[in-house]
């Protein structure tokens, strides 16, 4: 069976900022390669990605939306519990009703249909079937379904988000979902010292003879060139969603959101929103490969080349080394980059704009998922 993983590598410079702070207000850090690095935690960047993703993914475009949910569900019930075969349609109808979706009265010999087009992911159908089979043994099926909270099992707003990002908060419906996307903590490619901004604030209504400050304090910040990494397991996503178009749209929206989003911490103080200097996307078929090893020896800027150039060169070296040493040849690669400093990255894939990258990646994902099914 063919596997598809999408590795996303991003180099992004941020000016003085405090994107992600701990309980004392300092920007988060980590030690790597023996020196202190600036760090933005994976959960922080995942959240901003997720919020952005919500606005970017038009749910009306999602794959197979069907009125035949009852039929789908009845099939699933029959496969899982053949002994319920004769009651499957009735159970499915009750379940869909309990979710709060209107089901049209059946015409002659036809299975009931929902009143409007619905997109239910593979996983939701499985959850609902499970609940229906549980409820089948109860005396009062309707009541049992209500108690099983089938409404939550079919949270139609977020089926794609949960397949991709996993559950944020444990609840029974999604306890067994593993996110298809994996996001690493972003770390700076160079050593970082936290700096302090000492500020005084003046009380606007001070009398002339009061010359002191109204309050004083410090804000901690740093500036850094970050290496960000995320990977999407396309097979897992396809298992969760069960629909090629939905998988494709989800991957496209994730790439776009991951690249463009940024945690909003201290944004109004620093106005630090930037876009990446370089985005490298590699599609692989054996395993995802994190290239953070490129920066284990911290990047040092010199008179001739700044951090971005050194980081881009190190990233390219690492990618080519991995290819050479382990025979890990990517299926395909794309590079979106800015400026001369990142020119050497062009070797890793075709040089395209982000929009083209998203489209071409979507095409690849679509074909791979089709071939698999």
């Amino acid at each position, binding site marked *: 069976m063919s*596997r598809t*993983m999408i590795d996303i590598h991003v180099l992004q410079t941020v000016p003085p900022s405090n994107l992600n702070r*701990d*309980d004392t207000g300092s920007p*988060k850090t*980590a*030690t*790597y*390669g*023996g020196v202190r*690095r600036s760090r933005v*935690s*994976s*959960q922080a960047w995942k959240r901003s990605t997720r919020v952005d993703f919500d606005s970017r993914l038009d749910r009306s475009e999602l794959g197979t939306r069907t009125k035949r949910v009852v039929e789908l569900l009845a099939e699933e019930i029959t496969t899982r519990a053949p002994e319920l075969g004769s009651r499957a349609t009735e159970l499915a109808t009750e379940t869909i009703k309990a979710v709060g979706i209107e089901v049209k009265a059946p015409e002659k010999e036809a299975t009931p249909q929902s009143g409007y087009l619905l997109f239910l992911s593979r996983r939701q159908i499985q959850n609902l079937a499970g609940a229906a089979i549980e409820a089948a043994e109860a005396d009062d099926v309707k009541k049992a379904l209500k108690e099983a909270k089938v409404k939550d099992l079919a949270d139609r*707003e977020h089926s794609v988000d949960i397949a991709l990002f*996993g559950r*944020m*908060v444990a609840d029974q419906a999604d*306890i*067994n979902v*593993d*996110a298809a996307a*994996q*996001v*690493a*903590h972003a*770390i700076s490619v160079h050593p970082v010292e936290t700096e302090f901004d000492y500020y005084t604030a003046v009380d606007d209504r001070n009398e002339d003879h009061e010359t002191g400050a109204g309050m004083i304090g410090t804000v901690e910040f740093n500036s850094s060139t970050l290496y960000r*990494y995320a*990977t999407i*397991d396309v097979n*897992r996503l396809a298992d969760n969603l069960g629909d090629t178009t939905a998988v494709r749209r989800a991957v496209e929206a994730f790439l776009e959101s991951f690249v463009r989003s940024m945690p909003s911490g201290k944004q109004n103080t620093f106005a630090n929103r930037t876009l990446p200097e370089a985005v490298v996307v590699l599609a692989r078929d*054996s*395993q*995802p490969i*994190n290239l*953070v*090893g490129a920066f*284990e*020896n911290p990047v040092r800027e010199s008179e001739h080349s700044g951090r971005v150039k050194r980081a881009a060169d190190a990233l390219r070296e690492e990618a080519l080394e991995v290819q050479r040493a*382990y025979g890990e040849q990517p299926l395909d690669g794309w590079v979106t980059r800015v400026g001369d400093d990142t020119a050497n990255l062009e070797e890793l894939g075709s040089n395209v704009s982000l929009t083209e990258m998203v489209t071409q990646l979507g095409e690849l994902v679509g074909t791979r998922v089709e071939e698999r099914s």
Partner: protein
Amino acid sequence: MTVVALRLAGPLQAWGSRSRFVRRETEKAPTKSGVIGMVAAAKGLRRTDSLGELPDLRFGVRIDQPGQLLRDFQTAQRPKKEKDGTTSWSSLPLSQRYYVSDAVFLAVLEGERGLVEGIDEAVRGPEFPLYLGRRSCPPAGPVALGVYDRGLEEALASLPWVASTRSQRRHRANTVRLATVRDAHPDEAEGELVQDIPVSFDPNRRQHAWRTITRGTVEIDNPHGTAEKGEEHDPMASLGG
């Protein structure tokens, strides 16, 4: 006996053994349940699947680069759809998560050849992406180091030092003493009990059994060492003691 060796390295790793609720701790070395879980993921087992023979493998780790402890403070919020269509956010309990940063470990699993070779193959082309104890900790560099015809103790004492080149250079001496943590033999008297054998990873009913561990040290060659190991420093010698 046959062993499979794994190199566990990355900016961050987290190997919890007693984590509960909002305080998520980490051990200083990879746990058996963590590594077996990673191997099971590589093999494509679901959390609810039986682990088969995996928990019976003998397990040991060598701390090739100890790294540092890192505390991560994490907030989380739950979105809630209000009746009027807006979204409101309610805060969830604050949590403290601990990581080991900048560490490198050598993990070794001993068992019969077929099983061990299967693990090596699975780790080279994993069914689920590998991670070092937590989803946000992908490994840096390849994990699989291959299969060897030796026992667990011998493997820990003989496999080359896999710390980063930088720390090997900084060490200078041409041998290095490394700490090991391994499963005790049934006939070994000394040992600590830890609740660290995975029985089931089912999220509704996770279970761990107890294992006895033995701590030790081994002496390994340093490929980047330049200095002979010095004489033991004996401060009392100058007093004629």
